[in-house]
Each structure stands twice: as C-alpha cells, then as structure tokens.
C-alpha cells in the first residue's frame, strides 16, 4: 500500500514539473492603456449642483430620466446618494468649510482606474480596461458573481437586484460605445453648463489641473485626486477642501488590485506551491522511511 502511494507521488511530481515548463504562469495583465488615454477633470469649485449631468447620463443610457425641471430640486442633497442601477452618476452636496465658502457639490461615478480592481477580480473577464481609459463591462460574459462590487475601492458597480431575469451590473461606462471610442466627450461633460467637467487627454488634464492650482492657490488645495490615487484614475478631481471631507475614500496611491494580484500571481508563478508542498511531503516520508529502516 505504502509502496503504491510512493510511486503515485513520484509520478505526480514529474507531471507538475513538466507543467511548469509547458505553460508560463500569467502575472498582472500588461497595462493596455494608451499614453493618450482620455479622462475628465472635475472642478468641484465650479460645480453648482444643477444635476444636468445626472439627467444627461440617464438619457444617454436609456434609463428612466423623468422631467428635467425636477432636477433643480435641491432637497435631494439632504441625503447622501450613491450611484446605483438607476443612476450611474449622482451629485452630492457637502457643507462649506467656513462661512465665506459655498457648499460644495461633487459628482460621483466610476473613476475608471488605470489598474482597475474590478477587472482584476472578475473571474470571467467580463470587465476590461480599454485603451482609451474606459473600464467597461460585457453583459455576454458576466455570470453575476458580483466580485467586482466587492473589489471596487470606490464601491461603484451596482446590480439590478430587482430583476429576476438577466440582471445587469450597472456602472458608468465612460459612454464608451456611443461617444468616447469615437473621441467624443461623454454625455455628462457635454451637459455641464459651467464646464466644471473638462474632457480631454489625461496627461493634459493633469497639466491643466496643476496650472489652476498654481494660479489660484487660495481656491484649491494642492492635490489632484485621481492623479496618483489607486495608481491613477481617468477621472480627476480638483477641490477647495480635503477630499476626505468631500466623500472621497482614503484609498492610498497603490493600485487597488496591488495587494491581491501579486500574491496570487506570484505564488502560482512557476507552480511553486504544489512543488514546494510535494517536496516537503516527500522529504518527511523519506525521513520517516530512513528512521523505520534504522529501527529494523
């Protein structure tokens, strides 16, 4: 019995070693994004909270949008809202820091990370990062596991829980299909009357953002949210007060999949764990055999 198990293990070891040579394990997917990738700069000091972007987004995505006049009702700001399956972007209001400032309104939507956690977490590849910066979701591949919702550091992906048949993951898609893949600005950018949203190449937007800070050091804090957060995002924000006070999470500057991906991918690189495990077990058995032979 013991003999046959040993031969089995030997055989398994040979198989696993050949597997390492045959197939290279896949590390973090190479960043496909272009240097000229697009983005949007949101200047929260210019936003007036008119919510035209919310309306335009719903119309663009075929969601029930209601009457545009209802969007001037500012009582919605009494509660904090999150993007959900009925609204892919929402505007929230935060109190002013002092009496000379006005309350601040902040548009929330998918940040379109350069290293998206949702793409990393999706086990079927339904999420992809496009060359132009957009992070989009493919209905045909999704199995509804909702790992993306857990993985997202900004808690953006939403799920149509009310739908029994073919519920979708809902999140801002950077108007990829209809606009940004053709180089056109997103629906919300086009709707913004104050041009609080600026659509353009990400590196240019970063330049513009720093230029604005330099010219108006009293108006802005010296921080462009999204320039380095979670490794960089396509949506960038300028603010007059600390971003933590404006409902932004403290996400750090490391890519969100940074913690999980290297561990998983590194451990399984070169098939290390199985080989190590078998080597250990084999060693123990070999030692056991030695000592039993000595006893005999």
């Amino acid at each position, binding site marked *: 019995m013991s003999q046959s198990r040993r031969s089995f293990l030997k055989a398994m070891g040979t198989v696993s070693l050949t597997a390492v040579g045959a197939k290279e394990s896949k590390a973090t997917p190479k960043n496909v994004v272009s240097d000229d990738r697009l983005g949007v700069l949101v200047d929260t000091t*210019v936003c*007036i909270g008119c919510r035209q972007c919310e309306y335009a987004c719903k119309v663009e995505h075929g969601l029930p949008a209601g009457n545009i006049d209802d969007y*001037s009702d500012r009582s919605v700001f009494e509660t904090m809202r999150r993007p959900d399956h009925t609204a892919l972007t929402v505007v929230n209001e935060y109190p002013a820091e002092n*009496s000379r400032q006005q309350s601040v309104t902040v548009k929330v939507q998918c940040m379109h990370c350069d290293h998206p956690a949702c793409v990393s977490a999706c086990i079927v590849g339904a999420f992809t990062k496009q060359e132009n910066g957009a992070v989009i979701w493919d209905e045909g591949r999704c199995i509804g596991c909702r790992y993306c919702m857990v993985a997202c550091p900004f808690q953006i992906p939403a799920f149509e829980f009310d739908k029994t048949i073919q519920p979708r993951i809902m999140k801002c898609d950077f108007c990829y299909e209809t606009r940004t893949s053709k180089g056109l600005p997103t629906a919300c950018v086009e709707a913004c009357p104050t041009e609080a949203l*600026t659509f*353009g190449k990400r590196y240019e937007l970063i330049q*513009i953002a720093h*230029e604005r800070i330099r010219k108006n050091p009293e108006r802005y804090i010296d921080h462009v949210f999204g320039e380095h957060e979670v490794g960089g995002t396509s949506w960038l924000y300028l603010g007059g007060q600390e971003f933590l006070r404006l409902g932004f999470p403290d996400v750090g500057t490391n890519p969100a999949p940074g913690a999980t991906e290297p561990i998983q991918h590194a451990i399984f690189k070169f098939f290390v764990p199985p080989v190590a495990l078998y080597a250990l077990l084999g060693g123990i058995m070999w030692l056991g055999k030695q000592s039993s032979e000595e006893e005999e």
Partner: protein
Amino acid sequence: MKRMMIILGILFVLSSVSFAQQLGHHAKFPLRCDECHYCKKPTYNEPCLKIAPNFIREGITLHHSVEDAPTLFIIDTLQNKYAPAVFTHRLHAQMGEMLGGCESCHHHNPPGKVQPCIECHKPERQLNDLSRPSLKGAYHQLCIDCHRSWDSDWSKTSDCYFCHPKASEDISQSPKQLAELAKKRHPVPKTPEVYVLKSDYDEAPVVTFYHKQHIFTFGLACKNCHKDNACADCHASDAKTKEISLEHDNCLPCHEKAIDENCEHCHGIEQKAPFNHAKTGWPLKVFHQNLTCQTCHKNQVEFSALNTNCNSCHKANWQSGAFSHSVTGVQLDENHVEIDCETCHLNHNFNAKPQCTECHEDKSFPKDIPGKIIKR
C-alpha cells in the same frame, strides 16, 4: 584688495556678456513653455500660443467710467432650451466696483479698451486649449461665483430660471421691460462716519478709522480699499452682526510709514479726533477746505508738508490780469486792479503782509484798503 576687485569686476562683465549671448532665444529664458504655448513642441509656423498668458497681462489700459458702460446685453446663444438671458451689464459693472472693478470680469484683457468675452471665449470649446472655457463656461463660471454667494442658501432666486427665463416669460422682446431694466442702479452704499475698532495691541488698543473722511476728504475711491468684497459681505443674513475688521494691509500703501514706525498714528487709548489740517501748522481756509488732499499733495502716497507759498501751486492762474482778487475778500478799486501783484506782495510772498510803500509813503495795510472789503 584692489586687484581682486578688478579681477572680480572683469569676471562679472564677462559672465554677463556670455549670459546675454545665451539669452539669444527665449526658450532659454527662465520661463515655463506651457505658460505661453499650449502644445509641447511649438514651431515658428505653428506657435500654438495661448491668448492670455498670465505674466504678460497688462489688462485694460483705456478706461471708461461705469456710467459709460453698455447698459444691457441680451445673451441668446442657448435659445433652444431657454429664452434669452438679459444681462444688466451696467448694473453689474457698478456692483463689480467693490470686487475689483471691470477687471474682475474682463480679466485677461489685452492692453487697450475693454474687450467683450466672446473675443477670447468662443461659443465652441477649443479642444487644443482646454484650459480656456468656452463662452458658455466662461459666462457661468463668472456669474455663478457671485450668484451663489448672493443667494447663500442657493435655493429659489438663483436657479437656472433666474437668468434664463422660460420661453413664456421672455422679456427680451418687450422694450418696456428692457427700458426698465436699463434704468436699474445699485444704490450708493452708505458710508459710515467712523469706526472705532479694538485691536490686540495692548498698549493702545483703540483704533479710530474715519471712514467718511477717507473718502470725501482724502479722496479715496471705494475700490481703493474694497478690492474683493463679495456681495454677501453686505447682503448675507448675518452681515449686520458681523464685526468689521481691519488688517494692516488694508491701510497700505498710504500708511506704510506709520505701520512701520508710528503706531500712535492710528492706535490710541481712546477714540482719536479726526484729522485736522490746522495741526500741520497750516489751517485750511474756505477755498482749500473743499479740496481733496491730492489736489495739492499731487502724486504723494504719504502726505508731507508742501511749500506754503501760494505760487508753488498757483503757478499759471495767479498772474495779474488772470486773477480775480475779490476771492480774497478784498475787491481792488480801479486804481489798483491793473497793478502787478509784486508791487504790493513783495517777492510774490502772499503770506506776508502786503506793502504799500512802493507807491504810498503814508499808507499801510490793513489800516488802508486798496479797494473795499467784501463778504466772502
């Protein structure tokens, strides 16, 4: 030591010559390229210049008064959604005087007269210069700043329809309503007489600021001090209870010397009396009293004593024939009216007692009058 100085001098000349040669092309200047160019590699054919780089901004050089400002503008670039917005330009220009004047809106004006927004901000957003808002963005970004702070809870009076009336309420077609809007003026702000403020300077905590005197006597315009007063500074609900505060910077540049050396100029133990010119040793009489300081203290920031000789100011108009002597209270009779000033006022010294001895041996002023005394 001398030789050392000469060597250093030669080195300095050489280095400055070589520096001047280096400055051949402006790319070598200590400037940031993106300050003026919006593209990465400007060429002579395509310099991709930004229209309003900050550092060469000279702004409006041909000024006109607020009263000469255009009264109304009808902004109708968004006609598909809203009725045209009627912008009361002159009224806003008036309100802007305490914000920073015309420049608070006409910010990057090229040197010359005031340019309209559309000169730089085109209706379509220029994708090659994303830092410049389009006309719509420029309008909104400027308007919103005040309209939000004016309507502090940002609820009813500053929503979209405040400026963009619904199509049914279009007033841009009604000449009567337009004429009424054109008449609108911001009421002249009240000018309080005096502020007595308390400072944290323990030895002499009371600062007396004669606000009205600074305007009407010292000839300051509102915008000399009120450079960035927001509408809400007066109109917010808590404006009346807000304490007036003054910083030393507010009193620059006129009181620079006092701030540095003479605290007692403003600070005292109790309220100070207003400025009185008599204390300078030259009490102002009826004519000078009504003048602003700058009329005599020309081009002075901090006023200092002037030559009290009348001719030091009255150079041209106080010559014989051009001067009506009656303003002094003495109307000259026909014998004296033709005489040269110097005959009585020796050496043109009008402060000294006039002399009659040139012509009369037995007469003297004021016992004898060369005409008659009239009421002033």
